[in-house]
């Protein structure tokens, strides 16, 4: 049974993001991963997708504000 999770998954994701999405902030990647980690055994997807959508929207708004 599980106490804490060794985050090899997060490490792999951050590594991959450095190559595939170098301009995206590490905090966003970490936040997205946390959502997925919490919901990984959840029987339905909606809660995770909504949470991800919210994170992406916020990031996009920050980006657009920054551009302005």
């Amino acid at each position, binding site marked *: *049974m*599980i*106490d*804490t*999770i*060794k*985050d*090899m*998954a997060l490490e*792999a*994701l951050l*590594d*991959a*993001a450095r*190559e*595939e*999405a170098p*301009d*995206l902030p590490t905090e966003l*990647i970490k936040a*997205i*991963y946390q959502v*997925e*980690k919490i*919901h*990984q*055994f*959840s029987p339905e*997807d909606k809660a*995770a*997708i909504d949470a*991800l*959508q919210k994170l*992406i*929207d916020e*990031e*996009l708004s920050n*980006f*657009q504000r920054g551009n302005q």
Partner: protein
Amino acid sequence: MKLKRLSMHNFMPYKGDAVLEFPQDESRNTLIVFGDNMRGKTSLLNAIRWTFYEYAYGRHLRQIPLHLLPNREAVNEGARVMETRIEFEANGSQYDLRRVATMKNLVAKPERPEDIQVDTYMQKDGAAIPGNEIDAEINQFAPEQVSRFFLFDGELLQEYEELLIEGSEQGKEIKKEIEKVLGVPALTNGRDHIKTILKQAQKQQSIDAGKIKGLEGAAERHQQWVAKRESFENDLVKLQSLLDNARNSRLTLDDELEKVEKIYSQKSKLDSSRSRGKEIEEEIKQKTSLRQQLVGQTWRDLLEPRLILKRESLLQEQQRFNDLNKERNRIQLRIEQTMQYLANLICPTCSQSLEASKREAKEMELEQLKFQLHGLGADDSRLTDIALQIRALNKVIGHGVGDRLSDVDKDLARFEFDLSKIENQIEELQEEIKEFDTDAIMKMRSRRDGVLKDEARLNADVDDRKSKIDDADKEIRILSQRMQPDESYRGARGTQMADMCEKLYASFSLSIERLREALRQSVETQASKAFKAMSTQTAYQGLRINDNYGLTILDQNGSEVLLRSAGAEQIVALSLIAGLSHAGRPAGPVVMDTPFGRLDTKHRKNILGYLPNSASQLILFVHDGEIRGSDDLNVLAHRIGGQYEIKEISPTHSVLVQR
């Protein structure tokens, strides 16, 4: 997480109350529960399963219907409640989880799951947790999806063999389960969820682009491809659901066929017994007819002594005639020689002329010989008659009708015995298969073959739609790239969101492959370490992992050991479990039911020495054949924090006794 106490009330064979206290001392973290087969070891594992996940498994991992879980004896005596409770500690909090099954009003005896209502209660540090949050709370420290790796059924060990079979359906399923315990779903779900958001963003992209002057054409094509992809995806969902249904039907039919396989074998035994029975009946018929013939000839045995005497006398007479004939022939020869002597008057020896006196003597001798020959007489007709009589007697004498009759009687007795044995067998076999319709089994087989064909066709269709979706993705990407030079397009929110999602999607996809590779290496290293500690073969180098997390043994030269014993399989499987628990996450409690069935003494000792170090608490449900006497226990003695024994009160009532 640390288990404290399991309490049961009327759960399966545990009538009334039964309590199992788990060891709390980290240095003595092992609990052993001894119990003979059919006494309730697996029921203890099921009590834990049922408390956490509300289901219990029977043989071949089939779920046991709820109404069969309450203790039969207690139900017959009027009990209406079954309850299990686990008290444990996790993430620094104290938990109390209870599941209560109560017979519904007006139900005298539960006969179907609907006759029982189940209520679940959980307290965290003394405060009640709402019912709808209980599963999520359990998921935090003991997700049901990975429970097979800590609620461990010995029967499951052989399943890990499937991981070595390329393309095995069961292997794929186990691989998924393994990846769950290793935390891969956080990435695979993430990739799929990002993809969903990306698709929404691409729809928005089409709409945004359609409003930009000069991009109308490309936007329309973009929109068409997005719609096409959606249609392929809808197709894929439908096909996948049909495929799942076909696969489930096939698996159910496979299970059913496996169950009736014995019936098949009994049926073929029955057919062969019936045919042997017919053969024996035919042999009995032939022997009976022979016996009748022999009985008709028994007079021969009664007359035989006299006939033998008669034949003896005839044979003697025949001998006398033969001797007489020889004598006659001898005299006849001498007469002829004497007559020749007298006719030539020359001595046949010295060729000299005979004297008169000798000639007279020869003439006298000739007369005497003639007289002798005449005296001997000759009765050829009598000799012929004797020969005929002897021949006739020979036909009757020496047949041993009595002996032959006795042999036939013995054969008949043996055949009758065999026939009665076969008839009993036929009766038993008929009884065994009487409830099974063998024609229906044949039909089931043909239905399974049909479903298998459907499955293959659906698999091909699924692959086709996936490939079409990939093509659509490429087209959408190309069209988007063509529109990129347009500043308005680039600045549109839909485009920016799609770009971000593309990058996230690529990141998740790449990370999944990397994580899998890293996990495989980590599991291989940890499992090899465990294997070396548990195996008695010191020359082995370790284990090698394949893409499905299947493990093969490497010999001293680093070559794969292709043939391995059942015991070796068990050690490899246990090594995989140990590898997974170390590679995925820190060790928690592990509950094992009958895990040492196929191991020899030395391996058992090695494993018993190793396992307590691989889990925070080790709970073993074993029978005496698995852990034998003080020898095995000595290895564990310093780690044992408690021992229980399951005692049988009646076939439906067991109790736990502390040792």
